[in-house]
Structure formats: C-alpha cells, structure tokens
C-alpha cells in the first residue's frame, strides 16, 4: 500500500508540463469569453503537425522535437513524437497510454494514480481538443479576442495545479496556433501547431485509439 505513495514524489515531478514562459504574441484585442473561442475551435482541423521546444534549466541546449497531433471525435487525443525518437501517447478522460518506438505499450511514468496528474492531463486534453469552457474550474482565465484571432492566459487557481504550473498561454485563430507552459521551477515548453490534411497519417494515429 505504501509503495504507491513513493511514486507520488516522482509522479508529481514526472507529470509536470514544462512549457514555455515567453509570451506568445503581443495581442491586444477586446476581452471575450471562452464560449466564443470554444465555438470557433469546434470546426478546427483534426490533424496538426507540432514542433516542441523545451528549455530546461539543467541543460545547456533546448530540447526540440516534432510530430503529429490527432484530435479525435470522442474527446481523445493522440500525440505522436517522430523526431528525435518515435513515441506515442494517447490521452482521454479515461486513460493515459504510451507506446515506444516499436509501438509496444510502455509503463513509463503514468499518472493513473494521482489526482494531480489527472487534473493536468485533463487540462491538456481540454486545451488541445478545444473544450476551453471546462478550464474555468481550475484556472483564472483572461481571454482577449478580435475578429479573427484570440489569446488566452490561464493562471491556476487549483492548489494542486499551482504547485507545478505558473502560467499557461494559448493563442490561435481558427485553430490553436501556439501553446506555452511555464512551470513553477521556471522550466518552459513552447509548442507550435499547424493544421495539415494527410489522410494516411490520420488513419495511422487513429489506429492507436482502437484497442
């Protein structure tokens, strides 16, 4: 029973999002509410290409990676890193699965044990799938909009999230363009998304959702 607890220390650190802190764009629009943005995002493209850059204090160089992101209909996302190493993560409300470069399931730091990690993975899911409304529960939300684009700043109000994340910034237009996280210890992660239409890749990623 106790052994599980030890994982907590590690898990809490394991699941930190280490997203970037620099502001994404110097956007100046009018304040608006999440409902409008959520509506816009309903019709976004389901497949995106992403590139990720992590700045970690102990490392001299940023960690760069890239791959694809599939937003599935049933509120699940498939995140596949292709460079520098292939790995695939499936996140849904119910599960969190990871596969290695040979597509074998791995039990690396999972978060099924921990409410904090669940909170964070559901936050991640909400943002990526465009269900921004649900973020109000755990964050103080500042949203600015103009005719074509929007910009959101999320400051955690939930103490569990607060222990790990300082700030989340998202901006976009018809789809999410940038996402950045800054962690409590100042490590940062910056993500850039580009919608793409590649039916074959879409099928491939979709296959991870089928058991």
């Amino acid at each position, binding site marked *: *029973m*106790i*052994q*599980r*607890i*030890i*994982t*907590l*220390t*590690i898990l809490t*650190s*394991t*699941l*930190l*999002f*280490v997203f970037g802190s620099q502001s994404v764009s110097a956007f100046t629009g009018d304040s608006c509410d999440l409902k409008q943005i959520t509506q816009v995002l309903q019709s976004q493209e389901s497949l995106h290409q992403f590139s*990720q850059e*992590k700045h*970690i*204090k*102990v*490392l*001299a*160089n940023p*960690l760069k*990676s890239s791959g694809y992101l599939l937003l599935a209909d049933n509120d699940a996302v498939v*995140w596949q*890193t292709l460079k*520098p*190493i292939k*790995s695939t*993560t499936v996140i849904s409300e119910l599960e969190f699965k*990871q596969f*290695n*470069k040979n597509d074998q399931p*791995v039990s*690396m*730091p999972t*978060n*099924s*044990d*921990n*409410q904090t*990690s669940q909170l*964070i*993975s559901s936050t*991640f899911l909400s943002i990526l799938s465009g269900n921004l409304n649900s973020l109000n529960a755990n964050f103080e939300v500042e949203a600015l909009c103009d005719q074509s684009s929007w910009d959101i700043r999320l400051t955690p109000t939930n103490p*569990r999230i607060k222990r790990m994340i300082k700030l989340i910034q998202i901006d976009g237009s018809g789809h999410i363009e940038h996402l950045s996280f800054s962690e409590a*210890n100042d*490590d940062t*992660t910056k*993500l850039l998304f580009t919608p793409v239409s590649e039916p074959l890749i879409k099928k491939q990623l979709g296959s991870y959702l089928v058991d």
Partner: protein
Amino acid sequence: MSINLRFVFWILLLLSIGGGFYSQLQKGLSVETNILRLLPTTEVNPFAEEAFERFSEQNFKKVILTIEAPTVEEAIISSKSLSAQLLQSGLVSSIDTQLSQQDQEAIAQLYFKHRFHLLSDADRALFQQQGSEPFIDATLQLVYSPLSSQLISLLPKDPYLLSYRYLQDVTDVSNSPQRQLVDDVIMYRHQGKIYSVVSATLQASPFDSQAQQQLTHQLDDFQQDSPNIKLLYTGAIFYAHHAAASAKSEISTIGLGSLIGVILLLVLAFKSIRPLVLTLTSLGTGVFLGFTVTHLAFGSIHVLTLVFGASLIGVAVDYSFHYFASANESRRPLKHILGAITLGLVSSVIGYAALFSTPFPGLQQMAVFCAAGLIGAFLTVTLLFDKVNVNVNSPKAITTTFTFLSRFSLTFRHPTFLLALTALPVIAVILLSEVEDDNDNIRQLQSIPPELYQQEQTIQKMVASPATNQFFVVQADTTDELLNQLGSLNADLNTLVDRNAIEGYKHIAQFVPSRQVQDKNYLLLSNYLDRQSLSPLIELGLLNRQQLLSLVDNYLSSNGNHLDLQDWLQSPLGQRFSYLWLGEIENQVAAIITLHNIHNLEPLETLADKHEKLYFINKVDKVSAMFTEYREKALFMLGLALVAIFLLLSLKYSALIAGLILLAPIAASSLAIIVNILVAGSFNLFSTLALFLVFGIGVDYGLFYSESKKRSPYIVLAIGLSAITTFLSFGLLSLSQTPAIHAFGLTMLTGILSVFLLSPIFGHHIYRAQGVLDE
C-alpha cells in the same frame, strides 16, 4: 475425625487458598483473551512456532480503517482527521498509510545512493539480452513526451534512470488496479462507492482491554461526529474486544443464571436458609480454589476457561444436594453419602486427568480448573457441613414429583430395554466415523459477529492485505544468505502466481537484493557507462563530456556501496514493512514471505517441501487438524478413563454393578452424540469435552444408587435437583455466541437429560443386583 477438627482443616484450606490467591494478586492477576494462547504448538519445528509468534505479534497490532464517503474531498478530509485523532490519542504508534514528504524524499535518496547496485530482475534480463538500447529509448521517450518531467535533471547522474526504475519496481510489488493516491491519501473505488483507507499500528497489545475500549469509543465518536461518512474497520483488536465482551457477558449470564437456579431450588426443596448458605459456600470455595490453582499453575487464566468454569457450578452442587437430600433422613448424613460422593469425585477427577493429558493448554486449564473446583466443593461438604446443624424437611410435593418421574422411567425397566441401549454406542461410533473433519475448525473458538466479518470482507476485497495465518518462513545462517534464498525463490513464487495459487507475495529481498545480486548488478552496469552506450544522450545534449566523466567517477567510487538491510529497515519504507523481517531466532536469521489471496494450498506445501529451509505456516488448518486429532484422542482417553473407573468400581462392587453404573452414562453419551450429529450435523472437540462432564455426572448418579442401602425417595430428589441445576447452567451455555461453547452446551443438555431419565431404570437394576428389596 471430629467435626471440630474437620472445621479447623476447612479453615486451613480456606486460608491456604487465600494465601495462594493473595500471592497471585501481588504478581497481578491476568485474564488472557488471546485465543492463540489456548492452542497447542502446531509446528514440529520450534523455529517455525517462534516465527509464527513473532509475526502474529506484529500483525495483531495492525488495524485497517476505511471511510466510505459521498465525495473524494470528504473521504480525504475524514481520513486525515481520523489519522490525526488516532495519533493524538496515543493509541496508535504509527499510521502506515502516510508517508510525509520528508519520508518520501528519504526513501528516494536511499535508492538513489545505491543506484549502481540495484536492478529489478526484469531490468537485469533486459540489459543482458538487449543491452542499453531499451533504456536509452525509455529515457528519450520520457524526455520528449509532451508530459515531461523533472526526472530530466536526474539524467547526468543516472542516465538510465535506474533509481527511478527500481523504485517503480518496488512500488509495483503490490498493486491493486482500483487503488488511487489522492493528496497523500489512499483511495479505492469499489462497486461505485468511494473509500479512503487508513492503516495503523497499535501502541498497546490488541488484547489490552483498556486499549480495546478506548479505540472502539474513539471510532464510535468519530462516526457520530461525521454522519456523512461510514466507517469500516478490521483488525485483531476488534475481534478480541468482541470476544472479551461476549465472554464477560456469558460468564455473568451463565454463572448468575445457574446460581439463581441453585438458590431457588435449594429454598424450594429444603425450605431453610442454612442449606442455601452452605451450598453457596461450597460453590464459592470450589470456584475460588479452581481460579487460584489455575492461575498459579498457568500464570494467567483464559477467559474461555472461566466460561467453561462457570458451568462447573452445575456439577459441584451435586455433593451439596446429595448431602441435604440425605439430611431428610439423617441428622448426620455425611457418613451415608461419603462413599458415593468420594467415588463421584474420584471418577470425575480421573476424567479430568485424561483431559489434562492432552498437550493442549486450553484443555489443560479447563481440566485443572474443574478438578480443583470440584475438590474445593467436595472438601467444603465433607469438612464444613457437619459443623452446622441443619434440619431439612423437603416438601412432600417435590419428593412426590420426582418419585412420579422415576416411576414413569421405571416402565422401561425391562432387561430387553437395557439390551437395546447397548446398540446406541454402536450407532454413535458409526456416525462418528462419518463426521467430516471440517467441524473441528479453530474458528469455532471465537464468536465472529457478522457485522465485523462483513466489514472485514469488504475491506479485504479492496485492500490486498497479506494473509495473517498462512505464509512462508525462510531461515538462513546469515542475512545475506537469507536475501539470496528469498531472491532465488522468486521464480517459484512467480509460477504460483501464474498458476493462480496465490495472487501475489512480498518479501524483503524485493526491496533489498542480496550482496551477491547487488555485486552482479554493479558489474553488469560497467558495460553500459561508456561513451558509446550513452552516445544517443550525448548527441542530443542530454549528457555532456564533463558529466559523463563524473558519472564514471561516481560509479567507480561506489564499488561495494551496497544497500544494506539494516539501513533499509531503518528507512521509512523499512519501518512500514518491518513485519517481513523476523530477525534472529535460535542463532538463525529468518524472514517472512507474505501471500495475498491464497486460492490453492497444495502447491504452497509442495514448494515448502522442496526447499530445506522454507516452511509453510498454515496455522488455521494445522490447528483445525489438531482439533480433529484431539477429538479422537479425547474420545480415546475417555474410553481409557471408563475402563479405569470400571476396574475401580469392580473392586468395590461387582462387575455387574460397575457395568450398570457405567452403562447409563455410556448410553446417554451415545445418545448425545447421535442427536448432535443428526440435528446439528456435527460433533466436534468441544462436544467431546462435554461428554467428560456427562460421564462424571452420570457416574455420580449411579453411585448414589449403589451406595444406598435401601430404596429412598431422597436419592431421586438429589438426582432430580442436580439434573435441574445442570440443565440450567448448561442450557444457558448453549445460548453462547461462541460456537465451541454452544456445541458444548448442546451436548450437555442432551447427555444430562438422557442420564437423568435413565438413572431410575439403572438404579432399579442396581438395587436388584445388590439385593435391595422392592418397595
């Protein structure tokens, strides 16, 4: 001996009992409620016995509390406040489900410090088969995962994340899929309900009645203060509390019930206050002597001995009844009855001596208590009673009633009826041979309240707590040899899991491998700390030149830096699992392998047979098997006692009369056996014990007849009164919640009723054999 001299002896007797009691009082009287203290040692090997004792001592101190709450938040708040209250009360020494931040860091640091020596079996195999590649992949996967981690900062010092992986393996040792950890609280979702779990170790012994009361009060208060939640709990202390409480109430109901019965009968039958006072004195002296001698001999007295002992009243009162019934006819009745009651006492003591010869502490205690108690009552009758002048005049109505009853029985006095009775023992033996051994289950010794049992079941279904009565013990000369043995058993244990004989196991070598294994791990790693093995990490900038150099330095300087068992035991993790380590027993070191959810015992026994220093401890089954053995042994001893009493009586009377005296209790016992098996479906050790009493009392009745020189209605009176008190005390015993005592009471009821109904018939034949004329 003159009346006054006898009185002096009685006073001396009382003074010496008082002296003995006082000396015990000085040392402290102790009433034992631990059921295990009643049991004989089951292990041939004293080592295994000692191992069981150490393990159960630790295990008995565990309590598991679960809180069923409507929301997760409420479950968390409640379990935190419960933990705090328990710690504050001083009732528990630690909350085992809580590890502070500090504790967690200490554990992580301990494993990090020894990372070059620790590999799980799976990881060692992975290195051997595939080299460093899978480890590099896992590291990279982690680093580039969108949900990344602070583990990255560990990479320069532990590029394969070995400390993390080993810790992960340790935490997977017992894993339950429904378990969640929320805010440092262990949570379960079970059948759509939310539970949080607090497990704690008690400060005091679970058999300490003060601790029992305090804990139950505290939990009751907690439940009352938080109406939204439902508190479930399990642990030895709750069962012990219930057993002690029900034993206490049973002692008082049975003791008080038979006492009131005796008082009423005495007042009704002898219409005088003196017989009452004298009888109570005789009973009091008997109980006093029984208690003192038992406590003196065993250092404590078990609460179940007292329950059985309370029923002693029903037998001890016979002497008084016989005395006062006879006092109807004679002013000095002792000389008329001395032979009968002396022989009665001797035959009862022979029976108890047989009981005492079983190597069963519980039975020995009861035998000592009853024998001493009877002797005390007997001595009071013989030494004291004549000192007090008693004029007894039993009311005609009562003697007529009993005479009528005995006349009724006499309608069956035809010799063919006696012949038919001899068929009863044959039927009884046939039925006995078909009784399943299962009815000797040890659990009969304990009354298990259904709601406690229900709670335990619910908790067990969620929390995979180790089986408390079935486990392996491993023995070795040195700690390291022990760890080695434990480690080498993993393959066999995993096979047991694969075959679904058990669902899991736990031992210390899963947390601390032996030095030999640690050295092997260390050497294996030397192949994978070079530039080439780590090149993917170096190329990606996760590890630089300088860091690689100091990594190698670190590795080299930690040669021989083993994770030591003692260090682990002192860590917060080791403290929680200290029950797995038994320490030194008889110049050997020993450890436990706990088993979870055992489905099949046979392969476990086979495994233990295969290894010389591996023992499978199976207390419940062993004790139950032993109960069966003792049931058979006790029946055999009863047979022997019967032969001894027969020979003794044959010397005094003729073989025919001796046979007639014994045939009544034999027939009655056989009838009791038959009724028990046909009605209750079982006949266990405790019913067998009751037969000893049926015999003692039955022989008494026969002797009352054979010692009398003429047909007297007062013998029928004495027997009738005695039978009624016995019904009273044992009838109450059959109401006991403890199955063992219930069985005992039921056998007594049927046995004594038969003996009572048969005794006039045998009395008639005894009279005829002795040439006493019909009225």
